[in-house]
């Protein structure tokens, strides 16, 4: 019973949504739209549940003054400010000041932090490449040679040094690289399909936990 109900829901909902992809039927379409909308509502509850976990962990950390508790204060305070201003703005859509405050909070705090995280990637690409391209083995050496050729083919100076660099780079990307990538992509697609089939038909119950 504990597992039977979720498995039945997965099978019925999954089959209906799958049928909707293949069959043109107004009732089926309306049912599928309703099911997807229910999914959105359930997801909204999930966000609430997850946020409660986040707040509980950090309140606990603050109250016990564990190492780094000051970071938790920053997180809880920021959450409180964003939620308060967000709700106030929604309830008072004509209040231009509140709207501007919410937009400013987003544009001048959240966005720069997100951009900074993304920018760190540039430095991490350099450090990861340095480690990966060290000629410790045949594979690493091939990786280094291929990377240098592709870089020379894409950088303007490469073509000035030897006009065949772009041709070699293009060949490496379109033939050698693409062959491997397509093989992996087909394998991933088949693996994903098999996993989905197992879950849809109830053969795979691992995600429901180990207990009965």
């Amino acid at each position, binding site marked *: 019973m504990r597992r039977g109900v979720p498995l039945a829901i997965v099978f019925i909902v999954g089959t209906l949504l799958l049928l909707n*992809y*293949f*069959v*043109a*039927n107004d009732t089926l379409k309306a049912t599928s739209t309703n099911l997807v909308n229910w*999914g959105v509502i*359930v*997801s909204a509850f*999930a*966000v609430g*549940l*997850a*946020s409660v*976990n*986040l707040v*509980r*962990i950090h309140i*606990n950390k603050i109250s016990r003054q564990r*190492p*780094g508790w000051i*970071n938790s204060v920053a997180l809880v305070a920021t959450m409180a400010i964003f939620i308060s201003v967000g709700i106030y703005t929604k309830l008072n859509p004509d209040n231009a000041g509140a709207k501007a405050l919410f937009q400013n909070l987003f544009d001048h705090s*959240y966005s720069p*932090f*997100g951009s900074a*995280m*993304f920018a*760190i*990637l540039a430095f*991490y*690409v350099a*450090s*990861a*490449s340095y*480690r*990966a391209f060290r000629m410790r083995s045949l594979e690493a050496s091939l990786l280094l040679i291929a990377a240098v050729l592709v870089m020379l083919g894409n950088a303007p100076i490469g073509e000035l040094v030897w006009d065949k660099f772009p041709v070699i780079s293009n060949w490496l990307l379109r033939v050698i690289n693409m062959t491997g*990538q397509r*093989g*992996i*992509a*087909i*394998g*991933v697609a*088949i*693996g*994903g*399909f*098999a*996993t*989905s*089939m*197992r*879950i849809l*038909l109830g*053969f*795979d119950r*691992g*995600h429901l*936990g*180990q*207990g009965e």
Partner: protein
Amino acid sequence: MTMINGTFFVLAALLVYGTFIIGVLVATRSGKFTPKIRRIAALDSIEEAVGRATEMGRPVHYTPGYGDITSSTAPQTFASFDVLTYVVGLTAKYNTQLIVTCKSPQSFPLIQELVRQAYLASGKPDMFQEDTVRYISDAQFAWAAGVLGIFNREKVAANIMIGYFMAESLLFAEGGAQVGAIQVAGTGNLAQTAFFVAACDYTLIGEELFAGGAYLSQDAVKLGSLGGQDYVKLATMALISVGTLLATFNSKWLVDLMSK
């Protein structure tokens, strides 16, 4: 009730490929067929990673990645759950702290219950704490910042990243390398696989991600499904070969059939 144009071939492929997979799965479950799996270094290394964390007295970090349970990334997330169950069993066996971080609020309750029950099944229910599974944020870089903070504050000794990953893959892999963690990663996102290969100690490439559950649990259903995948691959290779031959002779028969 009529079929939507352009979906006939997809339906036929789904039924044929589905029959292959379910057929082999049922045959394996009934003991008539036993697929063999080659050794996968990345999966073998998970025990080594947890063992190392135990020796150092530091936690193991696990993340199922960017994917959720309702989109096209869901199969990779579910494949990750199989590996997570195995990791929970290992941390219970070695009494090592586990930290699981989530981005998707939808998969959070599922992961929380999965981890709780895996500890219960291992006979260590007390090891499941409120902060064992942590929801960080649904926003990609806020989640990445939170995970990097955990790496640095809690000095994780092992970092296991299995699932669907986007740009945060390299942030995590390099962040983990900076704190000296042994790293095992795997994703079906090709663009990120290269980052994992470059920055991690062990990487699951492509479909190896989906072999994790079968390889680690030796469960007949998962082994059968994996065996069925091989037959589907053979059929796909045959279809590609026929298509290549037909295209060489300027025939559009297969292309027309596939667009029906």
